[in-house]
C-alpha cells in the first residue's frame, strides 16, 4: 500500500504543479472579461513561467545565499505539502501529524521567500515583506485555530482521518469552514488583501529584486500555494472518495477560484492596518468557535 500511496502522492503533486498556473491563466481571462477586455490566453501564465524559467536568474549585486536559496526551499516545501494532500486522487503519503506539518510547511514556504527578499536590502522589498509577514502571521494564526478546531471535531491529527470534516455537521464546524473560506481568500493574497506586492505602491514589493528563474519559481510557488489552500478547503467539504475527487474536486476547484477572482475584481486595495484589523476580528471569532466546539456544538 505504501508504494500505491507514494504513487498517488506523486501524481497529486504533478497535478497541483500543472494546474496551479493554469488556474491563474483562467483567472486572468475572467478578470479581463469583467473589465471589458479580451484578456490573454488561459495558458498565458504557463507561457510566462516557461519564459521565466528559461531566463538566467541574474542575481547581480544581491549575493546573499539566503536570497538565492530561499525561493527553492519555499518551492520544495510546497511540493512536500502537495505529496500528502489528496487532490485529484484521493490518497497521498499521509502520516501521523501531517495536519500540523501542513500548516507549518505552508506558512514557512512563504516566510522563506520573504526572508530571502528582505535580505536583498531593497527598501521596497523590505517594506513589502514586512507587510506580507505581518498579514500572513495574523491570518496563519486563524488558520491554526481552524486546524485546531478540525482536529478537535474529528479528534485526529491525520489528514486522511479529518477529511471530510463535513461528516460531523456541527454549527462550530460550519462556522469554521466559513472562516476558513475567508482565510483561504486572504492567504491567496487577493485584493483587497494583496498588500505585499502592491504594484502601484511598492513596485512588486517582496519580489522586486528577483529575476528570471528565481522569479519564475516564486510565481509558480504562489499559484501552487493558492491551489493547495483551495484543495484543503475542498477536501474538508467533499467525501474522501475516488469518484468525488476525480470529478467534483476539479469542478469545485475551478469554480471557487473563479468566484474568488470575481470578488477580487470588484475590490480595491485595503491599507495594511485596516486589513490587519479584519483578520484580527476573524481570529476572535475563531476563539469563540473553538469554545463552541469544546462544549460540544
Amino acid at each position, binding site marked *: 500500500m505504501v508504494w500505491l500511496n507514494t504513487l498517488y502522492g506523486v501524481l497529486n503533486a504533478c497535478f497541483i504543479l500543472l494546474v496551479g498556473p493554469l488556474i491563474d491563466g483562467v483567472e486572468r481571462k475572467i478578470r*479581463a472579461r469583467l473589465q471589458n*477586455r479580451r484578456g490573454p*490566453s488561459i495558458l498565458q501564465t504557463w507561457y510566462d513561467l516557461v*519564459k521565466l524559467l528559461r531566463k538566467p536568474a541574474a542575481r547581480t549585486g544581491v549575493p546573499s545565499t539566503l536570497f538565492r536559496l530561499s525561493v527553492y526551499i519555499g518551492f520544495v516545501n510546497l511540493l512536500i505539502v502537495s505529496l500528502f494532500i489528496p487532490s485529484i486522487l484521493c490518497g497521498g503519503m499521509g502520516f501521523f501529524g501531517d495536519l500540523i506539518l501542513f500548516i507549518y510547511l505552508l506558512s514557512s514556504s512563504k516566510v522563506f521567500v520573504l526572508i530571502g527578499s528582505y535580505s536583498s536590502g531593497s527598501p521596497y522589498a523590505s517594506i513589502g515583506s514586512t507587510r506580507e509577514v505581518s498579514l500572513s502571521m495574523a491570518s496563519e494564526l486563524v488558520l491554526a485555530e481552524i486546524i485546531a478546531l478540525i482536529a478537535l471535531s474529528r479528534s485526529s491529527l491525520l489528514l486522511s482521518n479529518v477529511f471530510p470534516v463535513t461528516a460531523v455537521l456541527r454549527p462550530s464546524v460550519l462556522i469554521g469552514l466559513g472562516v476558513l473560506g475567508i482565510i483561504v481568500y486572504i492567504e491567496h493574497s487577493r485584493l483587497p488583501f494583496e498588500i505585499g506586492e502592491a504594484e502601484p505602491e*511598492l513596485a512588486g514589493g517582496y519580489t522586486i529584486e528577483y*529575476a528570471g528563474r528565481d522569479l519564475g519559481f516564486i510565481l509558480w510557488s504562489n499559484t501552487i500555494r493558492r491551489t493547495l489552500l483551495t484543495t484543503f478547503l475542498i477536501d474538508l467539504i467533499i467525501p474522501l472518495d475516488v469518484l468525488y475527487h476525480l470529478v467534483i474536486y476539479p469542478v469545485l476547484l475551478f469554480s471557487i477560484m473563479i468566484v474568488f477572482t470575481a470578488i477580487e475584481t470588484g475590490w480595491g486595495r485595503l491599507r495594511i492596518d485596516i486589513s490587519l484589523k479584519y483578520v484580527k476580528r476573524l481570529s476572535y471569532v475563531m476563539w469563540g468557535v473553538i469554545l463552541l466546539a469544546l462544549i460540544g456544538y
Partner: protein
Amino acid sequence: MKLYRRSLWVFHLNSGSCNGCDIEILNALAPRQDAERLGVKLVGSPRHADAILFTGPVTREALPSVVRAIQAVPEPKIVLAVGACACGGGIWHDSYCVLGGIQGLYRVLKSMGVAPPKTIYVPGCPPKPEAIIHGIMLARGLAGQRQARSEYFEEQGPAVKAEEDLHRLFHKCFPGRLPPKTARVEWGVTRY
C-alpha cells in the same frame, strides 16, 4: 526573439519625456487595446522585465538613473525607443540639457563599455497605442516591418540637359556684355 514569443514583460523607463508617450503606453494596456491579450505585462521592477519601453530624450539629470535602470534589466533584453524624443531626440534634440534620445544614451553606454541592446524604434509624437503594440510585435518577430528607407536620386542626364537649356536661355538673352564674375558666394540654407 523566440524566448519572448508568447510572453513579454515590459518595464517603462521615462528619461525626461513629456508624458504623452507614457500615457499612450498605459493606454496600450487599457481595455480598447489590451496588450495583455498578447502576453504583454507592464512590470514595476526592472529586474522582472524582458523589454524596456524607453521614452524621452534623456536629460542630463536623469542619465544616471536611466543607465542604472537599463543595467538592472537582465539579458537578453530588448529596448523599444517609443516616440520622437527617444528615437531621435525630438524637438529638443540639440538642447544643452538633453543627450538626444537613445543614440546619445548608447554613446554613453559604449563609453562605459556596455554594448547597446537590441533596439526597436517606434516613431510618433506620441505614437498611437496601436503603433506601440505594432512595435512590440515587431520586436518579438510576430509582425512585419512596414516602414522602409526610401531614397530617390535625380537622374543626371535629363537634369544636366535641363541645366544646359537654362544656361542657353540665359546666354541668349544676355549675349556678352556681362559684368565681371562676382565673388564666390555661399547661397542656400544649409542645415545639417
